[in-house]
């Protein structure tokens, strides 16, 4: 072992144990030129490709010297300097808190919600109501029960665009399954939206949810249908369409608004909500 190394070793032994083991508790790293020298060398080694091969030698020398110097900076002990503050290794204690106040200026919006379960229930009710109206249209006005079902599937299955009218009016298993799946997905999504938004609607949730929303929705559908589902547009009857939307809104809104509202759990951490972690301070 060289003499210098030994000296270093001794110096390090004098340093407090925590300073060595915990990063920067009592000390911080000392400034050092080696990183910049290494970086310079590395860059020059690359620059050789665009300038002159000689440059690579210069770069390599710098890089090597830099790396060695750097290594000696951290081995066997980090080269640190002490922090000139008494007690610097003792963490600041946390403040003394007053007992938990009963009433605080903290708020939860909205304070109470409909349980999500009721959204699903409402969605099912709405979905049925809507299906009934649509089926009625199919049978009464359009001449086939299958037509509305197949047309709905056309939203996701472009192949339906090429189907003949006769095909559209007969049963097709794939189309049926698609249609039902789509209907369920959309209904439940909308049901969830209802659940979370009904309490926020100022007055008469049923009016807003059951009538106004479907009208807006129908308007959007009317505007977009040409692109979303051209087949449907060819066949659609707008009064019936509106009717089915309103049926959905009313049924869904009715079911949801009848459910008793539950208070909301706030301020839970994500882990806590998922039941993974208990952080301190979560006694509540």
């Amino acid at each position, binding site marked *: 072992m060289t003499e210098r190394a030994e000296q270093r070793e001794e110096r390090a032994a004098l340093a407090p144990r925590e300073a060595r083991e915990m990063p920067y508790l009592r000390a911080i790293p000392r400034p050092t030129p080696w990183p910049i020298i290494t970086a310079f060398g590395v860059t020059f080694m690359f620059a050789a490709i665009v300038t002159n091969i000689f440059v690579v030698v210069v770069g390599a020398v710098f890089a090597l010297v830099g790396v060695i110097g750097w290594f000696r900076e951290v081995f066997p002990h980090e080269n640190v300097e002490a922090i000139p503050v008494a007690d610097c290794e003792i963490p600041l204690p946390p403040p003394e808190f007053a007992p938990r106040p009963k009433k605080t*200026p*903290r*708020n*939860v*919006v*909205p304070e109470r*919600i409909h349980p999500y379960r009721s959204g699903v229930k409402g969605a099912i009710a709405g979905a049925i109501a809507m299906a009934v109206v649509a089926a009625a249209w199919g049978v009464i006005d359009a001449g086939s029960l299958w037509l509305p079902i197949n047309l709905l599937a056309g*939203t*996701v299955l*472009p192949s339906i665009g090429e189907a003949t009218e006769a095909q559209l009016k007969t049963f097709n298993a794939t189309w049926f399954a698609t249609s039902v799946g789509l209907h369920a997905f959309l209904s439940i*999504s*909308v049901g*969830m*939206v209802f*659940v*979370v*938004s009904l*309490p*926020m609607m100022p007055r008469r949730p049923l009016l807003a949810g059951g009538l106004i929303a479907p009208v807006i929705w129908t308007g959007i559908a009317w*505007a*977009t249908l*040409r*692109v*979303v589902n051209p087949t449907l547009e060819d066949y659609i009857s707008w009064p019936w369409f509106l009717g089915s939307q309103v049926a959905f809104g009313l049924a869904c809104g009715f079911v949801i608004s009848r459910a008793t509202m539950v208070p*909301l*759990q*706030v*301020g839970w951490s994500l882990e806590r909500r998922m039941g993974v972690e208990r952080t301190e301070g979560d006694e509540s």
Partner: protein
Amino acid sequence: MIAIVFCIALGVAGMAAPVEASQEDANAAAAAPPVPPAPAPVRQPDGSVADLDAKLVICDPDAPPVSGAGVTSIFEPESPPSREIRELGFLVFAICIGIFVVVQGFLVLAIVRGVRSRRAAGREGEGGSAEPTQVYGSVPIEVAWTVIPTIIVFVLTMVTIRTIRDIDITSPPEDALEVIVIGHQWWWEFRYPDEAGEVVTANEMHVPVGRPIWLRLESADVIHSFWVPRLAGKMDLIPGRTNYTWFEAERAGIYLGQCAEYCGTQHAHMLIRVYADEPEAFDAWLDAQRKPGVEDPTVAEGRRVFAEYACLNCHTVDGTSDGMFGPNLTHLASRDTIGSGFIPLNRENLRAWIDDPAQLKIGCNMPSLKLDAAELDAVTDYLLTLN
């Protein structure tokens, strides 16, 4: 305020354009037969120089599609793909405007309320250092603004996929005319494969109206992109790979476009001109292109210079050489422009071009061959007979 700026700027282009276009549609429908054909596809065979000079205009102002501000506007489609894209674009734009209005509306509202509440708190007194009510969050609200965007995204995705499948077809439509487009730094080569002899031309593509055009896109060097906004969306031309796209010009006229993928120095001057001709005019043009060039004895000197100065190494006239590096010049004089669509073809310009192309198109791949004045005149005269 932001909303206003946004709406005005895009609205000007977005909303004004379709109105204009539909009016044009109506006009065109009413006056169907007399639609002025694009610059005459069949040139006078005698093709005297002075005659040509007078006749060549860079773009006929009366030709309907080239009108006013919309010559390359995506809002004035004249072909099924671009029309469908415009429809889709309006839908998406409308959705975005809707979201925009809602978000900015809430932002403005929050600002107004927030500033007011601060003022009120300030007025009420120094006594309470109280901060406003601290709200950590709200599960239902957060669920709402996760679910609603998801539904919007679902709709957007469906619409998009549907339109993709409509436009991005993988085999040529029935009765399509196939044209091979080859991108070069910085000009276009168009080939019309045909049993009666392949027709090769450059920079100015002629197509018949009302028939789907199936484009086979290739590149001779780097990546280019074929974009004529009023006819179809762009599609890249990639070396070592073949791409396809299609359009169908609905009305006669000139459609402008240009290379849309950065391809080097003169990317900016790689313009495309598509001439949509009535079918008869198109056939006539094709016939004329198929004919061998005229052998005019009066310009024999020019032809000699042309051969001597190795122009033939890069250009071919009537298959006299296999110079493929530059545009095929067999029917050069039947074009309206040189240098890929941005220099009107006339005697003066052509002479200047041959003298030193870089003067007109910096960095272009044709060298100046340092011809003297007499040779220049001779070659120019010769080239102008090639129609």
